[in-house]
């Protein structure tokens, strides 16, 4: 039987202890300095921002509740009208959700191709990986509202420019998330399929999709929620839907706060509804994965 000594240290324990302590002290010093710099920057940055602010943070702080209080009190006075107003704005809500749904679908398909073409080990043309990555960077770097404003100028107001704008941003954002999932996919099934002479699309369809589909669907559902909010915001710049109605209702001094309250209620209800729906569906997907 081989004899194995339990203490085979060539270096003395004291030496290891002191060198490790020195390392720990150095690390603590750096950590402390970083924390100090962070706090100094935060405090000074806040003060600079507050000085340049037209109103002043501390002076305005107590007024934060004024606008919601106005909206709520007026809505409460006219609470009998609320159901009627909710029914009135419901078609606009449907338009907003439609914009979000179509652009999520188009964006997810675009993101899928961008991700597969931009992932090391899976790409059809490995040399073009940087190109597809930069395309997806650009698509998500430009804010939806900028694309929408340009398109509204060209195409005129309405849901189509909003849909295109959100689709572009969604394709870029999902392309990034998808490619991170695809990077972690197991390459062995793909290699196995390649050894049988399968084409690139067959390898992706049979070797990669089954692994990544649950994560893809989960990210797409998350993106759908985000896009409902985005499409509501685009209504403010004339893309139609509930955002447009909200902008008209919530301007100061027009006395239509009951309309605004009804729209807020609708938006809130929608987002809660889709949040619940998608989280339930996502949970089922991730549970299904483990079985």
């Amino acid at each position: 039987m081989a004899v194995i000594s339990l203490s085979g240290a060539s270096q003395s324990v004291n030496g290891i202890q002191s060198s490790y302590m020195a390392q720990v002290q150095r690390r603590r010093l750096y950590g402390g300095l970083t924390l100090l710099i962070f706090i100094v920057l935060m405090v000074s940055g806040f003060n600079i921002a507050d000085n340049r602010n037209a109103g002043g943070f501390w002076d305005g702080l107590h007024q934060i509740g004024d606008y919601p209080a106005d909206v709520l009190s007026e809505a409460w006075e006219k609470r009998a009208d609320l159901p009627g107003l909710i029914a009135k704005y419901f078609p606009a809500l449907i338009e907003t959700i439609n914009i979000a749904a179509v652009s999520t679908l188009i964006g997810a398909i675009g993101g899928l191709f961008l991700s597969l073409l931009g992932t090391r080990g899976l790409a059809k043309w490995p040399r073009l990986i940087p190109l597809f990555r930069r395309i997806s960077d650009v698509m998500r770097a430009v804010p939806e509202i900028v694309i929408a404003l340009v398109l509204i100028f060209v195409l005129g107001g309405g849901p189509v420019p909003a849909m295109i704008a959100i689709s572009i941003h969604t394709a870029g954002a999902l392309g990034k998330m998808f490619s991170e999932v695809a990077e972690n996919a197991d390459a062995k099934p793909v290699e196995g399929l390649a050894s049988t002479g399968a084409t690139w699309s067959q390898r992706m369809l049979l070797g990669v999709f089954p692994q990544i589909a649950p994560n893809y669907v989960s990210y797409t559902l998350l993106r759908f929620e985000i896009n409902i909010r985005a499409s509501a915001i685009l209504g403010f710049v004339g893309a139609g839907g509930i955002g447009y109605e909200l902008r008209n209702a919530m301007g100061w001094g027009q006395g239509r706060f009951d309309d605004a309250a009804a729209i807020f209620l609708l938006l809130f209800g929608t987002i809660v509804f889709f949040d619940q729906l998608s989280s339930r569906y996502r949970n089922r997907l991730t549970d299904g994965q483990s079985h």
Partner: protein
Amino acid sequence: MLQVDTLTKRFGDKTAVDAASIFVDKPTMIGIIGRSGAGKSTLLRMLNRLSDATTGSITFEGQEITALRGAAKRNWQSRCAMIFQQFNLVPRMDVVSNVLHGTLNKRSTFSTLFNLYPQADIHKAIEILDRLGIAEQAPKRAEALSGGQQQRVAIARALMQNPKIILADEPIASLDPMNAQVVMQSLRAIHEEDGRMVIANLHTLDTARRYCDRVIGMRDGRIVFDGTPAQLTTGVARDIYGAGADFSEAATSTEIGTLDRPEARKTEIHA
């Protein structure tokens, strides 16, 4: 000292551990053997309170363990260290930090966040590493170490807890025979020198026979054998593993020596 009384764990309609009763009166090195799925891991996880028992009780030095909650439960876990098959270290942290995790039960989240361990603890951690022969690895990341070294780091973490009991769940199942020997000898040395109770799940008979004072055999969640290694005959072993007449102990062995002398082993069993 340790008393386990009709401990049962059910997952849905499947019973993983079925009314297990064990009594230990003094620090002993105990090996639990059995097939995969016999309930060995579930039993150890219930002892550490990583999972809750369905019914039954565990009593240690007069204290009821199964009823502990919150801080009292975490305190018990710090007194009852656990070693895992896959080491379960934090791979991106250095070896000493991993060993210092053994003191987490005594530290606040704040001091953990800023890595503020007392110098005495750091020195003690390195001394423990030296005792296990891996002091030179102290500043390296845990993931940079070999499997055998990682398992010794895990043992060092357990020792840092200064526990009364060390539970080892298949500590050598992922190791090659040489490293397996080093790890088992370390566990044996800890038992003999420090007088700590060691309970190890083992899936090889000869390891249990060689290192343990007492062997418990489990089959389908039940304890079917409890005795000294000498009482563990081939017939009993066949019963524990549910194997036929073609079963020989060498078949489950990971010892290098066994390969050279399968016949010698067999006669030793029959004697």
